[in-house]
């Protein structure tokens, strides 16, 4: 078995008396699509935040590519190859769609302490950004300000930003949330194409997408991982059926 790209060791986080991350141990292997499912309020977004660095865990360790990143700030983790999408869309409203993605390409390309050449006319950055926009179906929307895009388009933009960062591990927090049937099918197909090229930790409520995409699934309930396994194993797991799938399906 390949060594884990991401490894969480007994991660803990409480908000007051509320345990949102309860002794979570979990790994994501290189190239795998690992889905994280669980009921509302289970602590999925919090866990993504702990991995990306926005939320500081109370205890436990986060190892990424063999390195302990538990105490590193967000930007340092991103530099090492961790990219995330946000459940609540977080794009730059005053920038066009193209500028949003070009900034991500710029961050990937190296130092941004360059003061004189106009970034807007940097064809290398614009080219990569346009390509990423085309990949998520926004080819014709590059010149539109992000705050004028529809909700679904902003979700797609969020994904294009994460993809252009070319991360080793992509953390996706409900990429399908609030998008239409057609858009989520297209998104599933797109993630399918990414399979193998990079590892993905996918938080998603759309079970059809989860079972179509995931190599492995972990189930989080009240901050605790109650099961990890292949889609078939998870489907058959009695604990999971009772705690989670039973009510939804």
């Amino acid at each position: 078995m390949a060594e884990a790209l991401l490894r969480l060791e007994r991660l803990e986080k409480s908000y007051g008396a509320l345990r949102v991350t309860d002794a979570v141990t979990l790994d994501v292997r290189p190239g795998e699509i690992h889905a994280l499912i669980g009921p509302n309020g289970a602590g999925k977004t919090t866990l993504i935040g702990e991995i990306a660095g926005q939320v500081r865990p109370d205890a436990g360790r986060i190892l990424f590519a063999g390195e302990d990143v538990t105490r590193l700030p967000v930007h340092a983790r991103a530099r090492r190859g961790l990219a995330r999408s946000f459940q609540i869309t977080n794009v730059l409203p005053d920038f066009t769609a193209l500028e949003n993605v070009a900034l991500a390409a710029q961050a990937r390309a190296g130092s941004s302490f360059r003061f004189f050449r106009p970034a807007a006319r940097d064809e290398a950055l614009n080219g990569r950004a346009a390509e990423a926009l085309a990949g998520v179906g926004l080819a014709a929307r590059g010149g539109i300000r992000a705050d004028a895009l529809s909700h679904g388009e902003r979700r797609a933009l969020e994904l294009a930003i994460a993809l252009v960062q070319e991360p080793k591990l992509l953390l996706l927090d409900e990429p399908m949330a609030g998008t239409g049937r057609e858009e989520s099918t297209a998104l599933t197909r797109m993630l399918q194409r990414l399979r193998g090229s990079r590892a993905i930790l996918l938080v998603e409520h759309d079970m059809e997408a989860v079972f179509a995409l995931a190599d492995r699934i972990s189930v989080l309930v009240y901050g605790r991982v109650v099961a990890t396994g292949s889609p078939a194993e998870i489907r058959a797991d009695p604990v999971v059926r009772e705690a989670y799938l039973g009510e939804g399906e």
Partner: protein
Amino acid sequence: MTARAAEDRPPEAPALPAPAGTRARALGRLLVPVLLFAAFAALPAAADALGQTFLVSFATRVMILALAAMSLDLILGYGGLVSFGHAAFLGIGAYAVGIAAEEGLTEGLAVFPLAIAAAALFALATGAVSLRTRGVYFIMITLAFGQMAFFTAISLSAYGGDDGLTIWGRTEFLGGTPLEDDRAFYFVVLGCLAACYLLARAIVASRFGRVLQAARQSPGRVAALGLDPFAYQLAAYAIAGGFAGLAGALLANHTEFVSPAYMSWHRSGELIVMVILGGMGSFHGAILGAIVYLGLEEALSHLTEHWRLLFGPFLVLVVLHARGGLLSLLPVRPRDG
């Protein structure tokens, strides 16, 4: 381009959003600064023709404070950082000239870089602390640092203390005294303003400037891209300090006097008003704001000593009816420099 070529456009062209509006905006971005600088360039000759020579000195002061307002706009308009201690940078630049002169250093090639560096360093040091806070705390802490500089100047008894410091001659260059001639000094100030304007526009359009503007909109997004927003905001803060330091050095030369009042929080507030009045996030907006603010102050104070009574309602009207500042009343949207 000929009319024929325009007709030959591929059929998908009309799908693009309002090309006419975009072009008008691009034209405005070019036209407004060109008109402003042309007006400044023509002003001395016009003042002669009208016999209003005091205008040259007044316009010199306007350009110097416009430079300071522009530097504030870099962090306020583009960076989204409401700094309430900007006058300290201006004052430090001015005091650098005054203290250097007092100590016998009058060579411009040393004094001007010294003034710029002193203000930029002060900005770097205070910014490193201030930028760890946000929102109203950032306003408070920059105000506090500004007041510290103000009271430090008051306590400098060797350099005039409360009374300020008279400078007995304008800064020299290679032994000559080109700045002593008011007309020549006017054009030096105009040259500084134009150079800084172009430099500032280049900075906000650069990769660095993009990160700075992104950090205004969402620091969390910037960090998630692998860029530390703090580093970019601090660099912008120091650059703005340097520009303001240059304005301070020019101000000291203009008035041939430096005083703690240059650093008062009142002056910091005036600079904020200039930026908002003209239109945040546009450097020629800041210049326009300085012109209108100081112009109205001058005109109204001739009418009545209670000119602030008239000025207040004017500001209220601008803020209520022209959210983007006076620039938004022109067919130009303030953004992208």
